[in-house]
């Protein structure tokens, strides 16, 4: 069974303390601390020593998804302060200067993008991203991949090509407006087509926007999808 957990942003947007509180009684061993907006990253890193993250075997931080070129160096400098074992999740379209991220090596993980973006959506586009960050790892967003190609062929090709870089999987429905939502039945069927290509040790990070009473059922749903044998898909 894959380690599983939530993105704090999916539970409480920028309020990671509230998200951690809501998750404290839920059986999860992975977590993604979300700082999608530029003004969230500084306070989050400052608060890290005080956060109770003891139960999490896998921790990642989602770097801001959009910022100005002149803000990039400051963001990168802040991220040097986080523990080396935390993966840093980066959107390829947010990168203005890859040279700032290259020294992070395998600590950064490039995420595949949704349909709105012009880069990072397909194998070909991701290859281009990894060419400037050759040591970076990979965060596979299965909802983004399904939105780009509902047949899940591109998802399969992406997993096939970048499996050796895979560090975590984002799981959620991604709707027509590119918003993260609860996993629908249609998404469940599509995800099941490629779930077997995600190794068992890879953490699943849920990005479904949930209310507190939906947290547990969404975890069960994701685990069910990713633990099905090939022929039940």
């Amino acid at each position: 069974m894959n380690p599983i957990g939530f993105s704090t942003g999916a539970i409480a947007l920028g309020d990671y303390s509230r998200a951690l509180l809501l998750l404290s009684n839920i059986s999860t061993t992975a977590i993604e601390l979300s700082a999608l907006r530029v003004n969230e990253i500084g306070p989050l890193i400052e608060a890290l020593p005080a956060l109770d993250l003891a139960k999490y075997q896998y921790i990642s931080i989602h770097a801001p998804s959009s910022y100005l070129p002149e803000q990039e160096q400051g963001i990168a400098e802040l991220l040097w302060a986080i523990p080396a074992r935390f993966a840093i999740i980066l959107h390829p379209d947010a990168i203005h200067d890859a040279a700032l991220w290259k020294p992070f090596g395998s600590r950064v993980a490039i995420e595949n993008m949704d349909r709105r973006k012009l880069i990072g959506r397909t194998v070909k586009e991701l290859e281009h991203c990894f060419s400037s960050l050759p040591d970076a790892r990979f965060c596979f967003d299965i909802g983004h991949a399904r939105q780009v190609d509902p047949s899940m062929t591109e998802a399969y090709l992406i997993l096939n090509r970048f499996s050796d870089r895979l560090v975590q999987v984002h799981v959620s429905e991604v709707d027509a407006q590119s918003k993260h939502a609860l996993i629908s039945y249609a998404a469940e069927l599509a995800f099941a087509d490629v779930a077997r290509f995600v190794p068992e040790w890879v953490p699943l990070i849920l990005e479904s926007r949930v209310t507190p009473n939906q947290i547990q059922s969404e975890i069960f749903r994701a685990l069910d999808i990713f633990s099905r044998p090939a022929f039940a898909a």
Partner: protein
Amino acid sequence: MNQVDLLAEEIGGNWPSIRQARSNSLETIGKLTESLEAFTAPDTSVVISGSLARFEMTPGSDIDWSLLLDGPSDPNHLKISQEIGAAVNQVARKGVGKEGTFGTMVSSHNLINYIGGEVDTNSNTTQRSLLLLESRCIGNAEAYNRVKRNLLKRYLSEDSGLWRASVENKLPHFLMNDLARYWRTMTVDYAYKQRTRGGVGIPLRNIKLRMSRKLIYVAGLLACYDCHLAFDDEARVEFYKDRNVPGLVARLHETLEQTPLEITANLLRRFPEHNDATKKLFDAYDQFLRLLLNDDSRNHLEQLHADATENDAIYLKAKEAAHQFRDALEEIFLDGRSILKKFTIKYGVF
């Protein structure tokens, strides 16, 4: 180097008309891309089919196109398709066909969900089959690739026998049967057009049926055979035991991105025992394209009445090429000793 040129190099073929038609096609596609790119978007693709998509364009070719829709409905799609039609007419020498199958909007929903049954109209079967067998996209290809992959996913995921461990030959029967049905549909529609349009132009239509229409069926069959032939025994068992539908969709999609001539050359290159027949096949096709590249002979065939073919020198030359093409196919698919014969007899005939 494309597969046809590689084959030519390997077996000593010289097919200048195939090269010429390819060059014509690439030039026209370049012009269309310039004028049509602005009409495409992530949810809509301009799809061409026919000789241009097969890279077999000759000066008298028309340009069959459609606006493929794979997203929210938009009343402006009609205006967009009218603008596309006007832009294509600037490039094409002839208008699209009379049946109304092309030069219009096509919804992905019908293509993907209406396979078989009452709802699968002649137009739908044609558009679906040609999307797989002889299509190309101008400009943004997102919708085009999504629809093709989803279509292949339907054929492959619903093919129960394909994934059964006890089934040794891994051929996608659902897809193969639909392609065979389309080939027979084209032959029946030939008779229909002969009846409804009178005898003029029928000889050219007849030659096209025997050559280019037959070729797309051959390429479709070979693409299906490749689902088995692409693997050695061990790799095949491993691949199919996990019901790897997306993996097979990816493979078949890549195969079908080639033109029918390229698919045929690619597959037949693996069967050197058929080199003589393969050369004969491509020689015949080159001869067929030579006739169409020549304005005089093409115009002659276009104006020729079905009743006047018996002693017509140009028609007889075209017919000779068609017979050579047929004989070469028989040698490869029905008389040979390779697995192609086994598959064709076992699955392609009965």
